[in-house]
Each structure stands twice: as C-alpha cells, then as structure tokens.
C-alpha cells in the first residue's frame, strides 16, 4: 500500500486513471466570458427553465452527468461511484442529482476545492482497485450561493474591489481505469490553514497561504520544480489572491514560477464584466479545467498541469460570529 505514497501528503498513482470525458455547462455571465467557445453548453439565464435557482443548479448538474454518460456510451449501471460536491447547505444539489441515478453516491463538502478533491477521491478509488468507472460532478450558482453566504440576489449594495463573483454552472467528468485522455498522475491533499482573516469578501487573502502550503508540499513530496509543469493553476484566488500568492512564494519560500502560474478565477471572466477580483465557486476551477485546459491536454498543446483548487471553509454562521475563515487547497497533477 505504502508504495503509492510520496512524502507526507502526496499520492502517486501506479496506474494513473484517465479523465475519459468531460461536460461543462456555463451560466449566462460565464457564457459571455473569454472561455465561451470552450463550454459544451451555456444557459441563457440563471433559471435554466426551472422554478427556482436551486432547482436550476441541480438540473445543470444532472444534465452534465447525463451528457457525460451519453458521450461515453455508458449507462448509470456501469458506473461504480458518483462523487459530487457543491456549496449549498448539506450539499443538497449533489444529493438531489444523485437521486436521479442508480449509482452509489459519495457526497463531499470542501467548498471550492470540489473539483480537485472529488477527482482525487475518484482516482484513489480507481487506482486502489475499488472502482473502474467513477463520475465526478460539481456545481455552483451565483444566486444560490450569494443568498446563502451573503445577501438576497436583488439586494442593492456595493462590493469591495477585492471581492469575487461566484460562478454559475455545472460540470461532470468520467474518470476510469482504461480509455483515452489525460491521466491523473498524483494528488496532494492539503491541511486547513488559519490566517485569522474574517472578511468573507477577502477570500483571496484568506486562501493564498493554503495554496502556497499545498504547492510547496507537492514539490517537496514529488521532488519536482515549478518548471516541471506547463501550467500551475490555482482554483479561485482571484487577481488579488494570485498576486499575494506570488509575493508569499517569493518572500517566504524563495520560489519563483517561470510564467506558468495562473488562476482559474482570473480566466473565467473579462475585466469589463464587473466581477472585481475575479471568479470563485466550486464550478470556477471545474469550468476552466474541464473545458479549455482539458481540450488542450487532449490535443497535446500542453502536457502537464497542476490544479491547486482553493477553498474557504467558513459558514455564514461562523462569519457572523466573528470567527476566521479556515482555508484549504488540494492539488491534482494531470498529465498526458
């Protein structure tokens, strides 16, 4: 068993599982952004022809799963596990979606690290020999998340310039022990970091040290350098968090990235879309990874990617009670 572990926190898969297929559904604002041509589907509005935003989000996730099954000619009966995560209380979107499929369900809450954590667990299940096909899915919705974590959708207020915009959409991917596609070669799961930051609008500031911790841990465990990867992409630090991470890496660890460090939160929207520091939400990193980056990996335009998904693990109650925001980052290496 132990021969798959590298260093303290990294798992190196002996038969790296394949990401056989992905499906991405983007919300309306995301569908106007720079990645619009890379998404499989774009919802024309936030309601997605449903009666509530919550139903819309669940329907998006359900459609994404169905499309991945259809694209790969799989029936739900062929899938061993459905691993999903979202932002809403008790991960009800994932559970609702899971109720539509006769697949054993593993639901997880890990805030916006969803893609990395679900994919890590899927890869561990497969490489461990416990499953051969796993569907991973995640979603977030601006209107459901804003309501839960902040204010009603139509409530008028000004956001600070370092705030981020919760992305709308859903993605699903099929991870399997055979097939074609880029492979998940290793994963580094992170520890929870406390910075004492309490401002729920400053997630970049709260999460940057967690991202650095996981990145450095990954390099130490695998004896790799930043230039091993064509792309090291953090989940949703936003512009402010991204700058902070670069500064911390330089000043604290003397770590320089050879122009290959990016952030999904900075790639999802154009500057003029009024999203301040960038995107956030479970689906932020998923929409970027499973659309443009996945296609580039398949084509061979890039061959080694490290996704470092970041998550702010606060709850609305903990924030109102003045507690600081626990932060985490999980990394997965995807190579072709």
């Amino acid at each position, binding site marked *: 068993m132990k021969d798959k572990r590298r260093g303290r926190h990294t798992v190196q898969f002996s038969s790296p599982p394949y990401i056989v297929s992905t499906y991405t559904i983007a919300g309306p604002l995301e569908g106007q952004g720079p990645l619009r041509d890379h998404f499989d589907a774009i919802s024309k509005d936030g309601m997605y022809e449903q009666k509530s935003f919550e139903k819309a989000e669940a329907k998006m996730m359900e459609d994404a799963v169905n499309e991945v099954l259809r694209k790969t000619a799989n029936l739900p009966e062929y899938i061993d596990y459905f691993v999903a995560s979202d932002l809403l209380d008790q991960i009800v979107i994932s559970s609702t979606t899971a109720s539509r499929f006769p697949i054993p369900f593993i639901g997880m809450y890990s805030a916006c690290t969803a893609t990395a954590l679900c994919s890590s667990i899927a890869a561990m299940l497969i490489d461990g020999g416990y499953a051969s096909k796993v569907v991973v899915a995640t979603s977030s919705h601006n209107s459901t998340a804003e309501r839960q974590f902040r204010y*009603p*959708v*139509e*409530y*008028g207020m000004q956001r600070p*310039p370092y705030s981020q915009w919760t992305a709308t959409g859903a993605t699903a991917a099929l991870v399997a022990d055979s097939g074609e596609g880029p492979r998940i070669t290793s994963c580094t799961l992170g520890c929870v970091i406390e*910075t004492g930051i309490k401002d729920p609008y*400053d997630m970049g500031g709260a999460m940057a*040290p967690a991202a650095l911790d996981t990145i450095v841990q990954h390099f130490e465990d695998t004896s790799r350098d930043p230039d091993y990867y064509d792309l090291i992409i953090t989940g949703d630090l936003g512009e402010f968090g991204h700058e902070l991470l670069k500064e911390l890496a330089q000043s604290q660890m003397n770590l320089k990235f050879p122009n290959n460090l990016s952030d999904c939160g900075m790639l999802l929207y154009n500057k003029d879309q009024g999203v301040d*520091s960038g995107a956030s939400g479970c689906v932020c990193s998923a929409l970027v990874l499973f659309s443009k980056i996945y296609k580039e990996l398949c084509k061979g335009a890039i061959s080694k990617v490290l996704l470092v998904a970041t998550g702010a693990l606060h709850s609305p109650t903990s924030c109102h009670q003045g507690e600081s925001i626990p932060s985490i980052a999980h990394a997965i290496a995807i190579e072709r």
Partner: protein
Amino acid sequence: MPQDKPLNTSRVKLTQKQYQQLVSERQPKVPVLKRALRAFVSGGLICTFGQFLLETYMDVFGMTRDLASSATTATIILIGGLLTGLGYFDKIAAFAGAGVAVPVTGFANSMVSSAMEYKREGLIYGIGSHLFGLAGSVIVYGVVTAFVVGLIVSLVS
C-alpha cells in the same frame, strides 16, 4: 485582545497579525471618496425628487403637509420596490451605494429583495419569517434610538 498566533503552516513564517497587516497593505482599496461623491449626488437627487413630490401633493392635490409627507414616502417606497422587482435596483445600488441605501428606497429594497428570495419557501416559513431579515435591524434600532432621544428630550425640557 486575542493573542497573536503564527500561521499553522511552516511555509509562511508570519504571525496572523503580521499576515493580516500584509494583506491589508496589498488589498485594493475601496474608493471611498468616489463612492461618497456618487452617494451624495444620487441621494441628493432622490431627496430633491421627494421634495418635488411633497410640493406637488400639497399644491396640486391639496394635501396637508403631514398627509403629503406620508404620501411621498409611500410613493418612493413603491418606486424602490418596483425597481427591485424589475431587477434594476441592485444595478443602480452598485453605482449609487449609500445614495439609494440611506433614503427609504433602501428600506423598500431590503424588504422586497428578501420577499423575492424567500418566496419559494412559502408564505409562513419563507416570506413571513424573512421579510424583515435585513430591515429588522433598521426597525429595532430606529425604535431604540427614538426612545432614547425621546427620553432625553423629555428630561431636558
């Protein structure tokens, strides 16, 4: 004062306070002056419009000042509520900020947006219990302030 702790990662050799200090130095600053100016102008416009309504109700409809003042407030609440329902208020507020939040338009917006948000949860557990979710603070501290001021006035005079 809570005591200062180092971050629980050996990769960042800063205490929580030192890190928060760094973050607040690097953080993009809220453009306070710009936002205050916008709030001043837009809030002023709303109040001028309110004054226009008040005079109109008094002069054209022959209302007393008290009655016209209530009618003006009701009209502005109606407009604020309508703009919220039609989805324009949040966009205006993103520009005007306190300019629309401080006048009674902000009160209307907080109630209508809550009502819209919680409609799906039904009349009792949804709208009924959440309607004053944001506006409740205004009412509670409005009443408390009125009581305290009233008490002081009655003691002084």
